């Protein structure tokens, strides 16, 4: 582990739970030492990508307003199949749907610091 495999990695966190979202952003910003984008709806994240181009990794809640996490995953993977999409939820029933729709990872809530470190180790470093 001697170098970052995605230089200037662009990550976004999408969740309507402000406290959880800010926590995840803080952990990721610390780990990658880069700015991490934050959106409270799937639609806002999608509009950002329409205006500014793709992000390397998106981490989205499933029950978010605008576009749900599942809808965002489908659109994102259709347009940017090589990029990574991680879905997170507190509902175990969402896991199989995330797998079927092609999510790269599923983060079960409550998300811990070590879980996010593993995400960075798996997808960034």
């Amino acid at each position, binding site marked *: 582990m001697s170098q970052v495999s995605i230089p200037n990695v662009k990550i976004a966190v999408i969740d309507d739970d402000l406290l959880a979202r800010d926590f995840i952003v803080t952990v990721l910003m610390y780990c990658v*030492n880069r700015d991490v984008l934050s959106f409270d709806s799937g639609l806002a994240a999608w509009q950002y990508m329409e205006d500014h181009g793709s992000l390397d990794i998106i981490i989205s809640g499933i029950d978010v307003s605008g576009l749900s996490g599942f809808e965002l995953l489908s659109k994102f993977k259709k347009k940017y199949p090589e990029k990574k999409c991680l879905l997170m939820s507190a509902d175990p029933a969402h896991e199989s749907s995330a797998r079927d729709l092609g999510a790269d990872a599923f983060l079960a809530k409550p998300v811990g610091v070590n879980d996010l470190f593993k995400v*960075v180790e798996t997808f960034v470093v």
Partner: protein
Amino acid sequence: MIRFGPAPREMKSMSNEDIFSSRLKLLIIMTKAYLKDCPIGEYRKQAILENARFVFYQSLKLSSEIAAITNEASRTQSGTDSPGDMNDAYIFHQRTQLLAVMAKALAENRLKGQFRKKALQDNLNSICETLIFNFHIKDMNFLKVA
């Protein structure tokens, strides 16, 4: 698809307590990484400051609540927790707030000198003893790149 996080039976929404304990754990990792000379870039400094701010104010709120409960219990002599337990919790939160202040100082390049670093290490040790915190230093090797 890779899976991260707790087993299905343990899944739940993130409560304020989950966020506080996770952020406190992150603050401990941040300060331990500093003592291990992991590099600190601008965004890491920003993350440390944001995390320290959250932990400080949440801990301040919790210690105020503990003080209020202790005062009420001593007034009525009908507390459910022993005074010793409440005092330990109060001291733990004072140490947590001190850790947040130290983290802010290190992010602002003000935590210099061997005695300040020793004070940080002693405070970390005390907090970790209280938490029975089991995070091994090898787990953060990837922080050595920036």
